């Protein structure tokens, strides 16, 4: 199991994740499937990545607030699976647009990395 997120440094947003925007892209992609609350997001990413990725709580909540502030998400009052009150996060139209842009750049980046690694192996 690899840690996607390193421990964020409070005053240095450049270092908040492995590469800029990775956590955001995954949150946005997950919420595109359906609105979820925080813990559900953690579990969802863990499951979908077959336990390869684990989201640090220390990064998740600040990231959610940043995205709320950017207007990519909306928070609404809802209940958890157990019937307790919580906040459900939902993707906005701006969020979808941002996600589509980011996905392309993430894919390009992976393609680039893959090629570099392939050359290195030879």
């Amino acid at each position, binding site marked *: 199991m690899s840690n996607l997120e390193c421990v*964020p440094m*409070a005053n240095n947003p450049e270092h908040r994740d492995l590469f800029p925007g990775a956590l955001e892209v995954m949150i946005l992609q997950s919420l595109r499937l359906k609105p979820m*609350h*925080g*813990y559900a997001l*953690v579990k969802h990413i863990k499951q979908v990545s077959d336990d390869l990725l684990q989201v*640090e*709580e*220390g990064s998740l*909540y*600040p990231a*959610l*607030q*940043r995205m*709320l*502030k950017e207007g990519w998400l909306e*928070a609404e009052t809802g209940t*958890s*699976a*157990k019937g*307790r*009150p*919580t*906040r459900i996060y939902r993707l906005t139209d701006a969020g979808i647009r941002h996600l589509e842009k980011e996905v392309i750049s993430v894919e390009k980046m992976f393609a680039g990395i893959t090629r570099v690694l392939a050359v290195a192996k030879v």
Partner: protein
Amino acid sequence: MEWLAQFFSRRRRYEDISISVQEHIEERTEELMADGMSRKQAGQMARREFGNVTLLEERSREVWQWPAFESVLADLKFAFRRLGKSPGFAATVLLTLAIGIGANTTVFSVVNGVLLKPLPYPDSGQLVSLWFNAPGAGGLANFSSGLQLSASMYFTFSEQNRSFLSMGIWTPSNASVTGVAEPEQVRTEMLSDGVLQTLDVPPAAGRWFAQADQDPHGGKTVMLSYGYWQRRFGGDRKVIGRAIQVDAQSREIVGVMPRGFRLVDRDFDLLVPLALERANQKLAGFGYYGIARLKPGMPLAQADADIARLIAVWMDSWSNGPGTNPHYYETWRITPAFRSLKQLVIGSIGGVLWVVMATVGLVMLIVCTNVANLLLVRAESRHQELSIRAALGAGRMRIARELLIESVSLGLLGGVIAVGVAFAGLRLLVASGPADLPRLSEISLDARSLGFTLALSVLSGLLFGSISALRYARTQGSATLGSTTRTASEGRARQRSRNVLVTAQVSMALILLVSAVLMIRTFAALRNVEPGFADPQHVQTMHIWIPDLLISDPQTVTHVQNNITDKLAAIPGVTSVGFAGAVPMENVDPNWDEIRVEGKSYEGGEPPLRLFNFVSPAYFNAMGTRLVAGRDFTWTDNYDLRPRVIVSENFARESWGSASAAVGERLRQFSNSPWQEVIGVVEDVRVHGVDEKAPAIIYWPAMLHDPYTAKPTIDAPRFVTFAIRSNRAGTESFLKRVQQAVWSVNASLPLASVNTMQEIYSQSLERTSFTLVMLAIAGAMALALSLIGVYGVISYAVSQRTREIGIRLALGAQKGVLRWMFVRSALVLTGIGVVIGLGAAAALMSLMKTLLFGISPLDPLTFLAVPLMLAIAAALASYLPARRAARIDPVEALRAE
């Protein structure tokens, strides 16, 4: 406005975050319980996995904040809350700061108003005073105004210069105004054309003088000052065109100058055109101030060169009458040394003000060290809290910032109160009105002064805060957490910073005290100087001016003056009365000219210039000036125009070897003037102030042959100062009697400048006493503050060492030895401070040399007495806490743990 909406929705956002986090942990707990953990174990596990909830929530909330600003705000709130909890500390610090900053703001406002602000004229940087050096002219070219201009110089320079946009000359005068109310003597300024154009301040009503007003045969005009216009005419605009009687001459009012307008540095009531008759002008008559406005971009040196060229032209164009040598003035070596008008107005007060500014600056440093000391003690009591926070991961910067925020807000609060202090201080200063402080009316708390206060508040806050910030931000958590337990006393390092501060305080206080004591010694030395008159509080003086138009015949003028003298002498309680062209220390020199002593030849053929005065019989008696040899004038000498003079003792010694040898000897003014016999010698008089050497003076009788006219003409001074010796001098009833006596002779003669000789004498000491008072206040503040500092440090040391003292006492330490231990440590600190301070004072006092009189800047008595006084005071200040230490009950001290 989005940020505003955000600001208000924040509370909801924060709630969302904590609800989300709570649910997160709950679900994880339940999951773990489902795996078979107990609820307690699962809850702990879930929390551990999650991490620091508070930190995380804080970080999530920060997304919605301006983090730097808001955490500063929080620190600020915290600082105020803590200040509120210790009102005694807050009050002490704020009061100290308010007085320190207030004193600095006050003095800065004075420095700003007098030295820094430009003069209140448009483009005042282009204004110059026409100052001439003339080393060969003796007392005619003096230190305070150089050689003044003659009217002929004005004509030549104003017509032929290439440097000025405009130039003009003026001279202050007095005039009686009749026909408006009671006859009143007013201050006038006689102006040539060009003066108003040079200053370039438009009139408030009416018009300036035009060229036509300067025609000696044209219509007679006058302008009013704003003050006189308000006082006499209630600000009525219809006065323009009205006529008033000025010195019995009817003059039409053509204009009023605006409020606050002063002629360079002089307040006046009336402006009168000089109206010079060109045909009557000679080379001589150096009695006018000159000002000019330079052409834009014209350097002063070029203007100097331009006028230097015209001096030869001036000597070629004019004469002093047939048979005189117009190039005589080459021996005077007249050279232009023009200076900015501002420099002329400020004069030599700049030195005094900068010394005072430096002094209060030093007081501010002492204030800062004192507050720093208090803050150190306070930070000491928060030591544990700060250590714990450091141990929990608070960064150095974070703690330093908090301490600095506290100190800067203290500084700012102090600054706010200081503005009130400064306001009161300035009111007091302007009300006490030091006579020789120029531009007094322009001193105010303006934006620049307030900016200075703000800067000083912040800077001093940073200064005294940085000491404790540096000290505590370094704190190593582990090391200090332990040291507050049962060790006997605190470590040396903790006491060291406070010791350094106290030492610094003592040395700064020493500098201030030395300067204050030197000023006191200077003042005493000045008071000990024999001024050449006696018992000045019982001499009443007043000016009386008899204008040409009122009484034209000079002999009648003398008779009127004689009658007034007789009437005044008849007032009960008056012991003697006389008058003179000028009394000492009023800065009026009736005349300066050459004097030739019989049988003496002079280098270069020209004798030096001597100061002249014109005196009535009994004048010396009234002033208390001793007759050293010979006799006084009599009225018979006067009316018979006998060629007789009285000379000062120094002139007699210089010319004939002794005072008694002078009587019967002869002297004369010009080689063709009649010889004058010396009938008496009087003691030297310090006419230019006690700190200036007494000049040689020739006293002429009040009525004499005019030496400046070709045929013998009788002349008499029309502007004289009466001196009346009486025990009742200065009282109102006495002045009333004096006025009645004068009016019984001539009802249109006003009295002016009514002062006792004591007042004139005190005014001449004003600069010294002003400096003295300022330095004494600063010195007293410094002494008090540094004693508080010594007391505080020792008393804190005692309280910190209670346990140690308890143990010492329990082991049988002598109380006297214990007391001495604390007093000694205070004396060591004071001793080090004194040594440093003595060195600094010795170096700095040479800067004060010009302010001192009759005393060396390294006066041994001062340099011995002040340290001794400081040491005694420090010993006393430390004795109080030391005594408390010796009274400690060992059982109590040890049990207190």
